[in-house]
């Protein structure tokens, strides 16, 4: 099967800033692919390299096997949902959605019918006559989605599409986007700095750091087996253990990660320290223990005894829960 998007050693430098630095990436057709990373990590630049708003300094980008190095954005059959939605304020919702068809020369009646179809798909039937300014944030988001989908793109790019929405709406849209992707069978590439969003929505994700891909894999891979300290730090609420602690816990002198859910509290053990913070989460309590310089979080399930702040506790875990990883 051809890859929907393929990066071969792609770099994009802005002067001395290496926004994207030697990225290799394959996005399978029909996948929901997330690019995750802190701001300035190169994820948005990668998205813009796919849409054509940035040109690679070096390397090759292929979309469905075709080299797009010299293809301008308007001839690439990929569409973008912009972070600020970028709806045209002087057009009503219907004309916004039909815009892609209008510039391709489709007749008014036909494109309006198609636009209504798309509006129905994003559950905005009957909103066609409104101006974008008359819509809520969530509705604008749907219009942006409908406008991008009307062209029937091979790949849909989403640039932090849910960033401007409040939590409840964001969660609802996450489910809807996932359902929509499933229904259309399209390749979605979606940029976010929100770990939970990436883990819950994507079937594959790439974690970006300083212009490079730190790790690429399924959400389970990334969460359970972070390749580097950075990934463990960024993606999870995972505990990151320095080499000396790993050794004290019976492992080799290497960096390791340990998930709070897999961490138990014990009266005594090789690594112990005072409880410094307690956070009640409903389903349990997150207990933080300070062991020397390192803070280690453990999740105590609801119903089990919770220590008080300042009490000394040791940590315990099943041996297979300790995951060793690289330095960078």
């Amino acid at each position, binding site marked *: 099967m051809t890859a929907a998007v393929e990066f071969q050693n792609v770099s994009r430098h802005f002067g001395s800033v290496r926004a994207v630095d030697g990225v290799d990436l394959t996005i399978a057709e029909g996948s929901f692919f997330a690019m995750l990373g802190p701001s300035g990590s190169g994820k948005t630049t990668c998205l813009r390299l796919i*849409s*054509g708003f940035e040109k690679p300094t070096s390397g090759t980008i292929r979309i469905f096997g075709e080299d797009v190095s010299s293809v301008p*954005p*308007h001839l690439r059959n990929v569409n973008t949902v*912009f972070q600020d939605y*970028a709806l045209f304020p*002087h057009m009503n919702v219907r004309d916004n959605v039909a815009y892609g068809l209008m*510039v391709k020369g489709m007749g008014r009646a036909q494109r309006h019918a198609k636009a209504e179809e798309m509006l129905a798909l994003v559950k905005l039937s009957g909103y066609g006559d409104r101006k974008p300014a008359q819509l809520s944030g969530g509705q604008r988001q749907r219009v942006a989605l409908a406008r*991008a989908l009307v062209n029937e793109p091979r790949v849909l790019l989403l640039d932090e599409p849910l960033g401007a929405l409040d939590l409840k709406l964001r969660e609802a849209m996450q489910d809807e986007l996932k359902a929509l992707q499933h229904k259309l069978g399209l390749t979605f590439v979606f940029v976010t700095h929100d770990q939970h969003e990436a883990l819950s929505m994507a079937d594959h994700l790439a974690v970006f750091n300083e212009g490079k891909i730190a790790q690429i894999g399924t959400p389970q891979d990334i969460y359970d087996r972070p390749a580097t300290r950075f990934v463990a730090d960024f993606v999870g609420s995972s505990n990151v253990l320095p080499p000396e602690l790993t050794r004290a816990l019976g492992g080799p002198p290497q960096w390791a990660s340990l998930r709070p859910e897999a961490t138990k509290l014990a009266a005594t053990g090789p690594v112990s320290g005072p409880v410094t913070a307690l956070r009640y989460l409903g389903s349990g309590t997150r207990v933080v223990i300070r062991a020397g310089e390192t803070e280690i979080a453990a999740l105590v399930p609801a119903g089990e005894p919770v220590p008080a702040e300042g009490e000394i506790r040791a940590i315990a875990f099943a041996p297979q829960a300790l995951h060793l990883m690289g330095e960078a």
Partner: protein
Amino acid sequence: MSAPAILPARGAADRLTGVFWRRPNLLLLILVTPPLLWLGVVYLGSLAALLLQSFYSIDEFSGVVKEEFTLKTYAELFRAQNLDIILRTVVMAAAVTLACAILAFPIAYFAARYARGPWKAAFYLGVMLPLWSSYLVKVYAWKLILAKEGVLTWAASGTGTGFLIDGILSIPGLEGSSLSTSPFGTFLVFVYIWLPYMILPMQAALERVPNSMLEASADLGATRGQTFRTVILPLAMPGVIAGSIFTFSLTLGDYIIPQIVGNSSRFIGLAVYQLQGTAGNIPLAAAFAVVPIVIMLIYLTLAKRAGAFDAL
């Protein structure tokens, strides 16, 4: 002892701020009263006085203004020579506005979308600098540039492009012995003098178009031309209209440039100037002065109907 929940007023300024907080409209009232008085009394008042004058007439034998309501003065506007003045002025104003818009757009576009830091400063300086020097000096400078012995003719003959100037001067309606005595010269000077008033509002309008909107257009398959017609131009339209109000109305009212550069044919401003001065025909001068107001109202109505303010 802990700090008090209410801090003591330190003086008159604190108390005054308190008064404004309790009566939010008071500050607004104080702020808008002087300009409203100015607008109401000085501006609208003089406009009303002008309108009133235009409904009077002049006794043709004694030259005394008869203070009786009549439409006779307005009827005079429709005499061939007066209609000629109005038509000439409107055509000139329209041509100047169009030329200003075409010249200003790339400059404004560059300034709004590409110029950053020192380039932005250079843009503002470049646009504003001509406004620092006297209007009259600039017009006379142009007269010298356009004169038969001027630098333009000299440069044209030096580069063998003199036929271009001769060609322009042989077009019916633009005849003259040199550009400085041709209506085309008048046009050039008008364009130069009013150009900043077109660039600045255009740039302000273009500045408010986010880059992502242009990218969205390209992303959806639009060519540069389509993006320009369907996104940039409609969104910049309020700025274009604002600029064109300046260039159009300033050209409609100007009476100095046509006196200095061109073939001395009369424009509305010049007619008003001469009618109220030498001829002493205040009613006809007033009626002439109403013409630009009416034209601007028609222009704005048409612009609104065409949807120029939809993006406001």
